[in-house]
């Protein structure tokens, strides 16, 4: 039966997750140069448009219709059979469409996360093609595998509360694939472009943090104790992640930066995502403290060493943070907290850690391969990059015939 309290919670959580895509747009948009911010904002906005439609037309069906290990099938195409009564296999106390639209917002933001990797140099037409293909052939299957009835990682017993594998590892490794395929921005190297509007980065971080309460605590699909636990550990991991990154910078560079604190907060949010319904407060602190160490290393040590141009660190934050979170779930999960979950290594069940490893590995391999293939395909058919002159002029003018800011008046 539909419970109004649970429904209210899932609806507002859906709104919060929707707000994360504009949040991400400002988070990323503040980081690029003035001439490219509209490129970022537009990619995020169009992802929201295109993928909202893809989801109700067939994405939801591919992901959640009861089906094979990898593929939900086409039974629920156009939402046929997806009504206003609960569908108990997913959520017993809210209308089925509430579950559908909540999940839809995940399907929107996940591909949008990849934008950070190829920022400042990708053609808009190619972006639309890519995002649609990626959602259909990477997001939907991985989502089904982990969360769909019959999904093979779900059957395996992999725990992913709100999207460590489905969202962050998946998008993060795709980010690496795309960064490698598209290649570096021209003329960077000696002097890296500097974020053109740090307050926008902070605004984006704030909206992401706020929205993440819906992302994680909404994933309980009810306004219950598990939702409250998820809310509390989400906030805690964000806080420890933000503090931790700032402290690492303080020790290493002499000063903590706003950019660092924002990055750390987001990393903490990423890492707690798969664990939020399964771990309690002390593990959340540990997860948050360590994720910034891992991500900072990826971003400030590994990336410069290998020289790939993951422009806004979509791989360095989401894949690295998501992997740590998924594995940490295998360490810290506790059935005492959530009987629907499992015990992790530290609660006497090393098996779970191995399952988590397997789920991470499977996601990494599939997503890396499929994302690279799709991206390459788009390159061949449409061409990924704007030409050098356009890159110099910026995406705003060349892809959208607009400027972000006027200089006069």
């Amino acid at each position, binding site marked *: 039966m539909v419970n109004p309290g649970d429904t209210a919670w899932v609806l507002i959580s859906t709104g919060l997750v929707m707000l994360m895509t504009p949040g991400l747009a400002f988070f990323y948009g503040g980081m690029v140069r003035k001439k490219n911010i509209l490129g970022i904002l537009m990619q995020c906005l169009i992802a929201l448009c295109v993928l909202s439609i893809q989801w109700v037309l067939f994405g939801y069906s591919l992901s959640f219709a009861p089906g094979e290990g990898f593929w939900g099938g086409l039974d629920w195409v156009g939402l046929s059979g997806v009504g206003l009564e609960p569908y108990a296999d997913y959520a017993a106390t809210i209308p089925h469409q509430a579950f559908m639209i909540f999940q839809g917002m995940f399907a929107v933001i996940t591909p949008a996360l990849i934008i950070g990797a190829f920022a400042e140099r990708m053609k808009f037409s190619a972006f639309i093609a890519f995002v649609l293909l990626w959602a259909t052939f990477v997001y939907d299957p991985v989502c089904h595998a982990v969360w769909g009835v019959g999904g093979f990682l779900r059957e395996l017993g992999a725990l992913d509360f709100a999207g460590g594998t489905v969202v962050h590892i998946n998008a993060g490794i795709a980010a690496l694939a795309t960064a490698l395929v598209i290649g570096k921005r021209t003329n960077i190297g000696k002097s890296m472009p*500097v974020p053109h509007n740090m307050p926008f980065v902070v605004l984006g971080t704030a909206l992401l943090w706020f929205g993440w309460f819906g992302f994680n605590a909404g994933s309980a699909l009810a306004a219950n104790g598990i939702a409250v636990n998820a809310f509390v550990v989400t906030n805690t991991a964000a806080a420890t992640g933000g503090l931790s990154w700032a402290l690492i*910078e303080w020790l290493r*560079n002499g*000063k903590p930066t706003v950019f*660092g604190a924002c990055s750390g907060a987001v990393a903490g949010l990423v890492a707690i995502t798969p664990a939020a319904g399964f771990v309690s407060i002390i593990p959340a602190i540990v997860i948050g403290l360590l994720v910034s160490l891992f991500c*900072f290393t990826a*971003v*400030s040590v590994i990336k*410069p060493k290998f020289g790939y141009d993951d422009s806004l*660190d979509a791989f360095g934050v989401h894949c690295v943070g998501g992997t740590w979170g998924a594995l940490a779930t295998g360490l810290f999960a506790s059935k005492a907290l959530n009987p629907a979950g499992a015990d992790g290594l530290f609660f006497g069940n090393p098996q779970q850690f191995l399952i988590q490893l397997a789920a991470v590995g499977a996601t990494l391999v599939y997503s890396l391969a499929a994302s690279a293939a799709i991206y390459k395909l788009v390159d061949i058919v449409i061409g990924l990059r704007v030409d050098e002159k356009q890159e110099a002029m910026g995406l705003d003018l060349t892809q959208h015939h607009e400027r972000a800011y006027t200089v006069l008046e």
Partner: protein
Amino acid sequence: MKLVIAIIQPHKLEQVKEELYKAEVNLITVSEVLGHGRQKGVTEVYRGAKETGNLLRKIRLEIAVNDNFLEPTVRAITRGAKTGETGDGKIFVLDLPECIRIRTGETGGVAIG
């Protein structure tokens, strides 16, 4: 007539303006510029990437004066802008053969003030 161009530290603008008013130089044009000089910038750090912020924010003044006001103007700027540390800036003096007041069409020395 002369055109005086001065590059100064941003936080010295108020003081320079005051000194100029004392010297009865009231008409000025101000803009924001970035300068690279002897002064070393603070290193900026963005996600670990260090930028030796080699362009520092400066203020550029442009002041057209009659010849007899040149020295007072230069002295006023110097008084207001000087801290004795690198980065204090420079004053450039150009010849100004002609000056027109748009409102009245006046030209020359009388149009300057």
